[in-house]
């Protein structure tokens, strides 16, 4: 691997290894799409198998879900601004918008955990029915990804503070950005096919 730096490209694409890493991450996202597609498939098979337990209409708090959606979609937008700041070589702006993104993500996570607690209080647990098993695992997998993303982004922020903007830190920031947007896309599908479809019945 040559460590030649091509200054004509954006910072995160300047070294050969960076280009490999970014392509590798895109392919990893391909695998993630298959993973979530499978979970959606499972949900699609099981979503009406209530087994006498609560149905969608019994448990979904659509107002809270709307707030979650707004938080996460906004965080995707702020992540976009962060990468924009990175392209402008503005380290401070980049970190500021990354922190905002993470706060919005943490807010989303807080709401989601509350939602789960609310479900459990209603007696709707993973053990209740096939519908709820698939619901919890689909939402939980997405939530676990968000949690992982927050921890990961904190690591990247620490490295940005320590090392400033280099091709390596820029690549790491860019990749977490891709990851974050991907989680947003998955959420759009969850919002549509789980919550909206569930409320319509």
């Amino acid at each position: 691997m040559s460590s030649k730096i091509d200054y004509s490209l954006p910072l995160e694409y300047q070294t050969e290894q960076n280009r490999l890493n970014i392509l590798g991450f895109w392919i990893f996202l391909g695998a993630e799409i298959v993973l979530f597609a499978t979970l959606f498939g499972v949900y699609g098979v099981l979503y009406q198998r209530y087994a006498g337990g609560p149905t969608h209409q019994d448990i979904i708090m659509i107002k809270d879900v709307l707030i979650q959606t707004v938080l996460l979609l906004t965080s995707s937008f702020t992540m976009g601004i962060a990468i924009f700041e990175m392209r402008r070589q503005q380290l401070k702006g980049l970190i500021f918008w990354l922190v905002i993104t993470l706060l919005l993500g943490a807010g989303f996570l807080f709401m989601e955990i509350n939602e789960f607690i609310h479900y459990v209080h209603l007696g709707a647990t993973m053990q209740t029915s096939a519908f709820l098993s698939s619901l919890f695992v689909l939402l939980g997998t997405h939530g676990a990804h968000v949690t992982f993303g927050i921890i990961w982004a904190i690591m990247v922020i620490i490295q940005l503070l320590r090392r400033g903007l280099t091709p390596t830190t820029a690549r790491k920031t860019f990749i977490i950005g891709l990851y974050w947007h991907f989680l947003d896309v998955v959420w759009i599908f969850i919002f549509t096919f789980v919550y909206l479809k569930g409320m319509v019945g």
Partner: protein
Amino acid sequence: MGIKWDEFFITGDPLILGSQIAIVLTMVGIVAGVTYLKKWKWLWSEWITTVDHKRIGIMYIISGVLMFFRGGMDGLLMKAQTSRPEMEFLDAQHYNEIFTTHGVIMILFMAMPMLIGIMNVVVPLQIGARDVAFPQLNALSFWLFFGGAMLFNISFVIGGSPDAGWTSYFPLAGKEFSPGIGNNYYAVALQIAGIGTLLSGINFVVTILKMRTKGMTLMKMPMFTWTSFIASVIIIAAFPIFTVALALMTFDRLYGAHFFTLSGGGLDMLWANLFWLWGHPEVYILVLPAFGIYSEIISTFSRKTLFGYKSMVLSILIIALLSMVVWVHHFYTMGSGPAVNSIFSITTMAIAVPTGIKIFNWLFTMRKGRIKMTNAMLWSLAFVPCFIIGGVTGVMLGMGAADYQYHNTLFLVAHFHYTIIPGVVFAVFAALYYWWPKMFGFTLNEKIGRWHFWLFVIGFNATFMPMFFLGLDGAVRRSYTYSVESGFAPLFLVSALGSVILALGFIAFCYNIYWSIRHADRNITGDPWNARTLEWATASPVQPYNFAKLPEVDGLDPFWKMKKNNQGLTIKDSEIKEIHMPSNSGLPFIMGVAFGVAGFFLVFEWHIAAAIAAIGIIAGLIYRSFDYDEGYHIPVDEIKETESKWRNVEGEVHNYVK
């Protein structure tokens, strides 16, 4: 924490007691041996921490050979049990466990690592690269696979083996009907190994897409690289499905979810669908690289360019696509109705078309070639008729209506052994004979190799051919015994005797390795077979940086052209520049251990301990994130010295054919 400590170790079975003693003795022996030879430091710094694709490949292959032994023992035990009617060698439970572990180990821990190992060794060399795209990730892939394999293997002495078949169908595999922890091993160990495989897939796709040497366009790639590439793409498309299926199984078994249970609205056939949505592409992940191996070997030993290169590429693409849309043929008897079964019958039989194209291409490659009967070539020749038997019976099984007769009989078992053994195991043997000098700098003995070949091929046919007829007569699979009145006894006996010959073949192979390590001639060139692709354009064994100067390519069979035109075979001192190399790292090994330990606790449902071990995994990831190791450079003088050593060797091969 409902684990009873008195059930921790499996007791009361002399076979398992013997294994336990053997495992303890082997481990003591290995530790004592390494200590006595003072090799710990060497083992750690040269192998365990290595990120070199060739060494990782060799470790994969060694693990594969060991797992072949383990899976083979399982097979022999089954054959011993069914050799006579009403045998009382194994009880029903023990037999269930053995056919389960046999299947899992042979597919996931023997065939997969063998092929991924060969891919690791060969692909970067064939495309003229210095390593894979992510060397440390590659090491992590290996150690995850190894951790998963070890976790799965200890099941039969600690806690109990899984016993629901390698397919682990629900409801049998659920907590209700398999309350022990055996099936937890299945869910957790395969998950860990599966993550490793997925990472390998990503690594190879990026490597092949981005790291080909100058001039090697996609349509100038060697066939093995093509098939490895497509297999990697299938890995990325199929393994996440398995990840999900195993995770849902874990939720069902450990946390009382209702995905596949009979109660609570679960659907047991959902498991079968998910399993085969991964499982069918999986068999093409195995067989495609094997097809690539045969293509390379047949072309080399026929002294001809591969016939129909473009149609070969097209047919692997078609096979890859079709592999995704045939999964229902594994359970026509689910009763999805004639329309669904018909569609899947058609897609299944359609696979025979591109596969047939490939067979004809191999035959046409040999036509008018100057064929050299080396061992590698013999395995490739034996593959063709044996695999055709497997393929034709596959078309028989693929017909939905007829399948109701064959379903769950030994006919099916014979069919898939006739595809997987010629399709994968023969290929692995061929590849080992072919690329052995590239890995180790000496060839395997051809004469002992002939024993290996004939014993194995004859034993294989004697073992599995009778099973076709047993199956047609109605003998079901996975049944631990049969009555005298059934009339199955003679064919079962032939099959059992066949398996002994098969085992002798494997022993001959092991002896060949031993003999060749001791006695084979080390004075061989980088190109002992007069081969055609780039991996032969460098030293044997290959130097850590692969190529002092990256070769340039302008067509198929680049090394053949280099030899013919006498171009690019030499190197000037002025062309040597220092080479950047990645540093070794102990982290992948530690991560493998952490995954293994966390998995072990999870198997026993000790959630707190598992969570603590999982913190180790997170810590490893964080450590990796802060790791800014940039690797090191090999200085020009060192490269000059290494190059002058092998380039001056005279081109004589003495001892490998006797």
